[in-house]
């Protein structure tokens, strides 16, 4: 065998290369199985930016389907709960242009929380079935209530309620949520001289 190889260096080289190829191929194949990334990473990244309100305003049944659609090339300006900040984050991630929110899908609103007027609830469980994040607690023919900390404010439970006892309450500002706003630069142009301030303001 050795003699044969020595006599045919071309064959030896060929064998060596095939051998190397086989070894590295096996290695790569193993690595591909062992270190496989779950799912589609770009979809995960997009989904991480979407607000997970699961409200369907984007025209998809939930945030993840919209993330998949974006990854497949859909516009990034269809999620009202995410607002302009969300669009900016998506634009940066996907290297697309920042566009204003498409108001066909709704406007950016203050975050809301659902509230069930408990003495009017008849316990029909319809709202529970509609809630995408299991934020409603109750049982048939018993009072239901919303776990405010889990509610995403998606609005989906309001319509199914036959006695119309669910209100969407805008979240009030508290000491914990209050914060300084950026100074308003819109009405006072940056180039007024100080002595004109009285007239401009």
């Amino acid at each position, binding site marked *: 065998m050795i003699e044969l190889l020595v006599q045919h260096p071309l064959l030896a080289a060929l064998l060596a290369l095939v051998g190397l190829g086989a070894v590295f191929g096996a290695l790569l194949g193993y690595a591909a199985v062992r270190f496989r990334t779950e799912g589609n990473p770009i979809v995960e990244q997009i989904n991480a930016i979407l607000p997970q309100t699961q409200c369907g305003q984007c025209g998809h049944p939930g945030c993840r389907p919209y993330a998949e659609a974006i990854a497949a090339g859909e516009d990034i300006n269809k999620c009202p709960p995410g607002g302009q900040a969300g669009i900016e984050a998506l634009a940066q991630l996907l290297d697309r242009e920042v566009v204003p929110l498409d108001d066909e899908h709704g406007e950016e609103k203050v975050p809301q929380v659902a509230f069930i007027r408990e003495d009017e609830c008849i316990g029909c469980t319809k709202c529970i*079935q509609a*809630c995408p*994040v299991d934020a409603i607690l109750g049982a048939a023919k018993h009072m239901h209530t919303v776990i405010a900390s*889990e509610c995403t404010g998606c609005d989906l*439970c309001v319509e199914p309620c036959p006695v*119309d006892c669910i209100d969407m309450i805008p979240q009030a500002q508290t*000491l914990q949520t209050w914060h*300084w706003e950026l*100074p308003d630069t819109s009405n006072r142009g940056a180039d*007024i001289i100080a002595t004109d301030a009285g007239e401009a303001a």
Partner: protein
Amino acid sequence: MRKIHDFHGGIHPVENKHQSLHTPIRDAGIPAELTLPLSQHIGAPATPLVAVGERVLKGQLVAEATGLVSAALHAPTSGTVTAIEPRPIAHPSGLPAPCLVIASDGEDAWCELPPPCSFETLERPELLARIRAAGIAGMGGAGFPAAVKLGLKPGTQVETLIINGTECEPYITADDILMRERAAQIVRGAQILAHLVAPAETVIGIEDNKPEAIAAMCAAAEGTGIEIAVFPTKYPSGGEKQLIELLTGKQVPSGGLPMDVGVVCQNVGTAAAVADAVEHGRPLISRITTVTGAAVDEPQNFEVLLGTPMSHLLALAGYRAADNPRLVMGGPMMGFTVPDPGVPIVKTTNCILAPSAQELPAPPPAQACIRCGLCAEACPASLLPQQLYWFARGREFEKAEAHNLFDCIECGACSYVCPSNIPLVQYYRAAKAEVLQMRRDAQKAEHSRQRFEARQERLEREEAEKEARRAARKQAAEEKARRAADAGSGEADPVQAAIERAQARKAAQAAGAASEENPLQKLEKTVVTTRERLEKAEAKLAQARSEGADHIAALETGVEKTRAKLAAAEQALQDYQAQQTPAEPAPAGDAAQAAIQKAMAARAAQANKSPLEKARDNLEKLEARLAKSEARLAESRAAGEEEKIVEALASSVERLQEKVAAARAELAAEES
């Protein structure tokens, strides 16, 4: 003499400290009402331990610390708890916060205090417990609970204990006068702190613009091994990181804590409070507060009970409200405007500044940044304020964060030197808040995502289980049929017959479905058959009654059940018909998905509509809902459902009627 280092930047604003130093500390007395905010410190608000109407004694614990990072509250005087409710507090937002209100009785009767003792006899954990029980929270202004800062991890070696007597901000003299008058107490406090953290050295740092305080402290510290370090006046040398650099030359790393360079830092006010707490067992119920500014006749320092309204102090100092366009808590550099002079003094209120309009004029309008770089020269944290400003303004918060936004101590030096009067600090405060908000939102979104996915998974699992059960049932039935067939083939077996009948029916149904028998017909059929069954059952029941049979009860429940089934079937039919109107059959299965789809369809229809159309749509929708509710009401009346349900339905019908009327009016208004 130790070597004094220097830190980058800094400014020299007019000090304006002499005004409030003419008189010694004055006791502010006991106001009629004390308001104690439950959160006067960084961390979780305290939990009230007393009830409204309860009598409390001076020094009594009225709210305990919640969790580790929190501080207890004590009654500053004896009296009655009159309320525990949200009240306005000193906060830039002007929002109210939960407060404990005490009406004082003027007796000022102390509760029983732990016996006085000397600190040398106490073990460390005991010392720490005393400090914690006294509710001491950083009195320099930040309000970090002292016990948390002092509760070092075992095994940490503290190089330097720094007692901060710098008080670099203009106007404020609370620490200055405290050092002049109570130097011995501060030194004892420093000794206790040193006993607690066992540092290699203890230094009290004072700016050289307080010669009397320096003299007093030097005298008091004589022979204790505590060093008094004096350094040139420069704002903001009182900043924790700046002071550490001044005294030790070490820089606290970005995002790090003083402990990372082996330093513990406490304010002189905190040291005095610690001495009081450990030696006399007295909790923190009062503090020294400067009242100053051109709008008060007698600027001075007060020893004031926590919870005293600012207006009480201002009145004592001869406040002229007319001369004072805005009232500031804290100094002119880092303070903020308080919304209302009635707000209470808290553990961190070192100064109330009532400037006249000339003294602290409203800032002139901001102009464009001319990139002069003065801000970067002034920044004590060695940041690039100009860059941060551009990033904050352009809402590029991540970039601002990457430029160490969170190292900004909001000292205001950059705004002070900015020739274009840009309110830089406000940009940084807003940017920090936005970043924190973004982090919170991301957390909440992640949480919602997990819940959504868990729900999705659960629904799938349930569906699969149902499917499995169905398959099992079918198999069992087939098995039985086969056995029956094996046993008595040829004979007319009732089971077999029934199965065959059922199969035939199913086949017919399937065929019907294929030949466009739509679900509507199916539903209608269910209603009809159920009604037939109900009638039959009722007839049977009537017969049983007339015969006086003994299984009436069973028959009755049977009738009830069938009736409920009928109601359900009718409901399903109605629902189906209602859904049918938008021409699109709801996909069976996941109700949430269906709801989402409905909402989506509605929203798609909503798009690009004039307000008139929207109003009309709205009206239509409401009318449909009203019709649905009315039908439901009629149905439940007919079915004789519980009183409560019928009532609820009736009231919802009423409400919807109102809404419809309102929508009509709106539509009319739109049309006109």
